[in-house]
């Protein structure tokens, strides 16, 4: 069976979580979640994660696991102590999928268009994004790279802070803002340009930079060092273990192979 683009993205997400620290890894959605588990089981054993509810587990919970498939808990991290233990102490790295992202790394999960009193489209609300953004590292996974997500100008509502100098209150401490990677179905990006500008650092097999630029509403920096690596055999086996029911096959449209043009 050929390696899928979803599996390549999982490895790229795992790479985003790479750390020597003991922090909570939160991957929201199948691909970031499997990526966090893969990071913990390979290069980053210090990572801590929950069972999706309130308990810390030392073996990542396979997606959809029930009963005996679920690992026994090793620790406790309920919502009721999440801010003091994880978020506000900076001991967390979250990978999320916001609805909009702009060139400053500001994201929107709140609402689209209209006004604050009457939005055109009401979404989830800011959730924990403002706190995540000011206190701990964050990455993003975008399953369909497009100018509707990577918008020109600013996002409609700024739910999480980025590197926008126009949104700085003098005397405020913005030192905790630490945006790491954006993994999409086309490429991997980081914030390593001048003033944290967004750069493309690797292209998925068969993708060219111009294609990424065309799918982005703002100018990108070409810092491509090569192709995003394909998963190795050990990684593929772990991915299968973390997702035995194949939820990863349902994330990207038509579940394409990692190497475009291959079948």
């Amino acid at each position, binding site marked *: 069976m050929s390696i899928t683009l979803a599996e390549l993205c999982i490895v790229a997400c795992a790479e985003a979580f790479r750390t020597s620290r003991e922090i909570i890894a939160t991957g929201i959605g199948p691909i970031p979640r499997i990526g966090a588990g893969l990071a913990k089981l390979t290069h980053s054993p210090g990572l801590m994660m929950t069972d999706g509810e309130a308990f810390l587990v030392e073996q990542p919970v396979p997606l959809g696991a029930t009963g005996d498939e679920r690992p026994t808990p090793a620790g406790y991290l309920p919502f009721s102590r999440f801010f003091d233990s994880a978020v506000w102490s900076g001991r967390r790295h979250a990978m999320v999928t916001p609805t909009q992202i702009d060139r400053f790394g500001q994201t929107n999960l709140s609402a689209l268009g209209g006004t604050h009193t009457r939005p055109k489209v009401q979404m989830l*609300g800011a*959730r924990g994004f*403002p706190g995540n953004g000011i206190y701990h590292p964050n990455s993003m996974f975008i399953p369909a790279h497009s100018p509707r997500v990577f918008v020109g100008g600013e996002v409609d509502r700024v739910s999480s802070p*980025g590197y926008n100098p126009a949104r700085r209150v003098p005397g405020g401490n913005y030192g905790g803002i630490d945006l790491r990677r954006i993994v999409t179905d086309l490429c991997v990006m980081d914030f390593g340009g001048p003033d944290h500008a967004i750069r493309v650092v690797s292209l998925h097999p068969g993708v060219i930079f111009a294609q990424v630029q065309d799918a982005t509403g703002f100018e990108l920096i070409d810092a491509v060092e090569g192709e995003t690596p394909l998963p190795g055999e050990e990684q593929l086996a772990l991915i299968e273990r973390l997702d035995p029911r194949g939820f990863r096959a349902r994330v990207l449209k038509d579940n394409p192979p990692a190497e475009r043009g291959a079948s």
Partner: protein
Amino acid sequence: MPTIDKTMDAAAVVSRLRSGMTLGIGGWGPRRKPMALVREILRSDLTDLTLVSYGGPDVGMLCAAGKVKKLVFAFVSLDEIPLEPWFRKSREAGVIEVLELDEGMFQWGLKAAAFSVPFLPTRVGLGTDLLELGGLKTVTSPYDDGEVLVAIPALKLDAALIHVHRADRRGNVQALGPDTYYDEWFAKAAAECFVSCEELVDAMEASYPQDVRANLFERCFVTGVAKTPGGAHPTTMPPAYGWDMGWLKKYAAAAKDPGGWNAVAEWAVGASEADYLASVGGQEGVAALPLPVF
């Protein structure tokens, strides 16, 4: 020996509330919500409410019924149905005021109210739209660092509504699930706190002394106790029962119907709690709902 008895029924709880009040609702999204008390509000004439909630169907239903003047929220979600459709409808019609907060800011505001201070400082909100849209102010540290911080105003509640597994007549409560969310702080932020429970016992020390660590907050924070078995339905109440996702899907789909809320309320609220419970399979049916898998 004189004793304390705080028991009352759900209707008595609602009779203690007034239109225009600020109500805090415990739980989190579609998890351990005091839905029997919410349904009782929906059967009442109460209106013009300000809700403070980590929102789930409680918020959606009260918005749909036109009971809400203002909502203080960080999200409104049914988990597997990420966006609460009735809440969206109210927002997109522009009929409710909102104060949108971050989840951490929200609990910080409850804690400020609990501690009787006007605000608590944080960095959260800096660099986002929440400050300007919410009219949130900053404060400068009086110490050498001079840091400028966001002042989260105290979220003072006229009343808090919370659902737990067990309570006794004096107001000793036990919540058994893996997570208690921020219910403790809703109780402490409120002038009065009303607790609904699955099981009411005479004296906790006689019935469940081995589980006292599940006592979420002390009984001095409890004004009234109402027995409402199945009272979290359709939300999840671990370990007793799970959410009723079939019910929630039907409720969510109904937001697309042209008929509006009144037709939905007939089955989603019911004429009485007994009618409602019977319509969802009775206590046995609720108890058989499987716990969600995360």
